[in-house]
């Protein structure tokens, strides 16, 4: 067994952990980062979906929830976490969500400070709006439909620099244009002296007399490696953070650990157009329609190479082959629901088991969302629209088990609440009842945001970093 001593140990190198590591290290702290997955290099990317799913995603991108319906939940694994494989979409936390946190969870956030944190993250990630010419013809189709219907829409902001629209954001950016934390914050952390240990599995957080002491890990060679630190930040992600806290015997006091799982369940429709779309030549997620955002329904463009489209095209046999032969004329639009369902995360053996059933309220959102999705694509001039439903099932009559869902943005399993009997961490992200232990990932976010959460997680992590440094976040 060997031991490393640090001022702070950060578990996870994704959206939350990488930000913490860089800010703390640059602030003068001796930081150790523990990342279970490997470090991926752009030279190893192949732009082939099956290979990249296998290499960049946890469980090869085949994590599935148990419930009605089963929902695929792709999660990144390795340095960069899910920021390595997401679409790069950047939204600040909506004001009405911040207000809900204040009202329902007693979380008081200083607006000026939060604004500084967002601005700092956006600068670090080179966030900017997608240029229409880079967005490609898939986005142009959706824009045309939205304009004809008079629906609110716009180009998305993304963390990409020098993007040439390779069309494979979800399968490893081959140009390193996407500014994921593996090429932004982690190099900064390293340059400031942080030790980044990839392939190192955090097994247990050490706590004695209600104070954190460090982390027990398994090194890549299988040996035990202890990190002794007076501050530990758990940022292992919404699915794995509650499991680590539970196996460490902390965070369970409120009874909320592992509960309140919120997702953005999503699906997509494919349209056959008369014009050439060539959807893989453009930024896959570049355009949104937020006309129904207040109802918890958001449309965002998605796109990908033929293998990706073939997987999601809801047809069989000859019909599937016939439509795929017109791949250059296919357009695709995703539907994301801000959920009220609520799931939970448990451990069986060494594996997480995720329970999630779609609530009736959310099923209703899918029914109306799919109807509107088809309307938009028809308004854009679609010759045919393929909804993700079994043959003969209309959106109005769809049952939960008829939906083919993926989900993104898991949140809430170690939710923040000012009251120790209602939440796992307080508004400052400190675990209730354990000095020196913090959580900084999607698990602290109490409930669905309705928008992609990476910026929210990073801004909260930035705020925590400067709290720990007892320094103001620079304006």
């Amino acid at each position, binding site marked *: 067994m060997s031991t490393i001593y640090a001022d702070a140990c950060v578990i996870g190198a994704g959206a939350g952990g990488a930000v913490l590591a860089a800010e703390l290290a640059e602030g003068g702290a001796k930081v150790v980062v523990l990342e279970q997955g490997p470090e991926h290099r752009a030279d190893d990317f192949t732009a082939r979906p*099956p290979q990249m*799913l296998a290499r960049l995603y946890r469980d090869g991108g085949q994590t599935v929830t148990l419930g009605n319906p089963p929902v695929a939940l792709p999660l990144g694994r390795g340095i960069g976490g899910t920021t390595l494989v997401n679409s790069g979409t950047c939204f600040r936390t909506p004001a009405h969500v911040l207000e809900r946190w204040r009202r329902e969870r007693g979380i008081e956030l200083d607006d000026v400070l939060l604004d500084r944190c967002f601005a700092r993250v956006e600068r670090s990630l080179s966030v900017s709006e997608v240029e229409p010419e880079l967005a490609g013809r898939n986005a142009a189709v959706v824009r045309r439909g939205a304009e004809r219907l008079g629906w609110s829409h716009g180009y998305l902001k993304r963390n990409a620099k020098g993007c040439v629209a390779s069309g494979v954001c979800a399968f490893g950016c081959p140009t390193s*244009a996407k500014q994921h934390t593996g090429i932004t914050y982690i190099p900064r952390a390293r340059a400031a002296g942080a030790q980044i240990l990839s392939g190192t599995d955090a097994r247990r957080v050490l706590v004695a007399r209600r104070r954190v002491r460090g982390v027990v890990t398994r090194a890549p060679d299988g040996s035990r490696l202890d990190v002794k630190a007076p501050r530990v930040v758990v940022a292992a992600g919404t699915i794995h953070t509650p499991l680590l806290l539970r196996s460490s015997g902390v965070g369970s006091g409120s009874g909320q650990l592992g509960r309140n799982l919120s997702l953005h369940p999503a699906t997509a429709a494919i349209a056959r157009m008369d014009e050439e779309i060539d959807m893989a030549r453009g930024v896959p997620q570049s355009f949104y329609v937020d006309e129904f955002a207040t109802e918890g329904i958001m449309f965002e463009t998605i796109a990908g190479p*033929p293998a990706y489209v073939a997987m999601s095209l809801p047809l069989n046999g000859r019909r599937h082959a016939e439509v795929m032969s017109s791949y*250059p004329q296919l357009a695709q639009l995703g539907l994301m629901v801000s959920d009220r369902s609520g799931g939970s995360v448990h451990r069986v053996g060494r594996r997480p088991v995720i329970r999630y059933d779609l609530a009736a309220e959310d099923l209703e959102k899918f029914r109306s969302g799919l109807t509107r999705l088809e309307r938009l694509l028809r308004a854009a001039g679609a010759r045919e629209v393929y909804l993700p439903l079994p043959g003969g099932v209309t959106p109005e009559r769809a049952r939960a088990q008829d939906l083919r869902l993926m989900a993104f943005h898991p949140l809430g399993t170690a939710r923040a609440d000012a009251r120790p009997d209602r939440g796992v961490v307080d508004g400052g992200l400190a675990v209730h009842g354990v000095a020196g232990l913090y959580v900084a990932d999607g698990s602290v976010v109490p409930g669905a945001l309705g928008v992609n959460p990476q910026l929210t997680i990073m801004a909260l992590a930035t705020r925590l970093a400067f709290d720990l440094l007892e320094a103001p976040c620079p304006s």
Partner: protein
Amino acid sequence: MSASLDEFVAAGPWPLRVVIRALLPLARRPRGRALLRLVTGADQALGGVAAMGYYDQPDVARRLGWDADAVIARGRALRREEGRP
């Protein structure tokens, strides 16, 4: 099964891996698909995996205008020229 699809299946959680390996051949035949339709979701899920494997083949994808090797080569050249990571 192509090496690429095999890598994908092998990366999955073991219960799923066993099911996919056992049932994927069915998803490639019309009668097999009819059998899979008896199990909710199995038909679409396994059909999706089989379709992904088929359209991932470089010659099939190229016929539809997608050349993964060219995308990677362009990325590599750009990273080299501009000193990107």
